[in-house]
């Protein structure tokens, strides 16, 4: 098992740093390149959501835990911010977004499209904890 913990302040300028660290973390994994790019997108979306919603205008810490084992990549995103439960089930209607000129609300949809499992929970240590799992290619075929 391989694990890395990243801690960032909730500023959007830190998103590219996380993308770079994650890219390096999964570089040698069995995920093909296009899959790695999609995983980076999903994690970026998760952290961008926390940056935008968790702490309001206050500064706050976001902890990202990356764990790679023989079966899967697990990404945990934790914060101490306000209770934030995004809609993890309903898909947005892109035509409604266009008609109403809506710019946001697409990140969770991308996270769910890319990752195999996405869940939210509250823990004693952290206020919000998002967990995302992507199974390695061979595990995926065994599961299907």
């Amino acid at each position: 098992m391989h694990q890395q913990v990243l801690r960032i302040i909730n500023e959007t300028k830190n998103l590219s740093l996380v993308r770079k660290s994650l890219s390096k973390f999964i570089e040698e994994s069995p995920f093909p390149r296009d899959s790695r790019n999609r995983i980076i997108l999903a994690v970026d979306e998760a952290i961008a959501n926390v940056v935008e919603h968790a702490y309001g205008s206050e500064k706050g810490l976001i902890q990202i835990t990356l764990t790679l084992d023989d079966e899967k990549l697990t990404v945990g995103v934790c914060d101490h911010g306000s209770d934030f439960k995004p809609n993890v089930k309903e898909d947005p209607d892109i035509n409604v977004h266009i008609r109403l000129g809506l710019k946001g609300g697409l990140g969770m949809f991308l996270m769910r499209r890319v990752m195999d499992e996405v869940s939210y929970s509250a823990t004693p240590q952290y206020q919000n904890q998002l967990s995302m799992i992507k199974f390695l290619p061979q595990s995926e075929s065994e599961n299907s």
Partner: protein
Amino acid sequence: MPDLKLSSRAMANGCFYLEAQGFLDAHTYEDMDRLIQNIFARNCYRLIIKLERVDYISSAGAGVFVGAIGESQQNGGNLVFLSPSSNVREVFDLLGLSQIFLFADTLEQAVRSF
């Protein structure tokens, strides 16, 4: 180099040409949004947007175009994406935008799309 580099110019045929380079994410999308709104404020709604050198786009970046295309079309214009990078195309695909947005491989083709 900044995370996102933007350039734009009015074209002789009433179109506006925008070119982006770098990352179009939650950190930079407001720059693109501001640029598009400034162009709309000049009553120009036919935008050709070159994304060939955009290495990364997130939903925040794509959302700028989702939010802008309706206003553009309501005013007789549209957004045409010129040579988007494979990373951009993939995110547009994931969001279902590839069936909605117009794409072109050359500037001439883009101009003819309106």
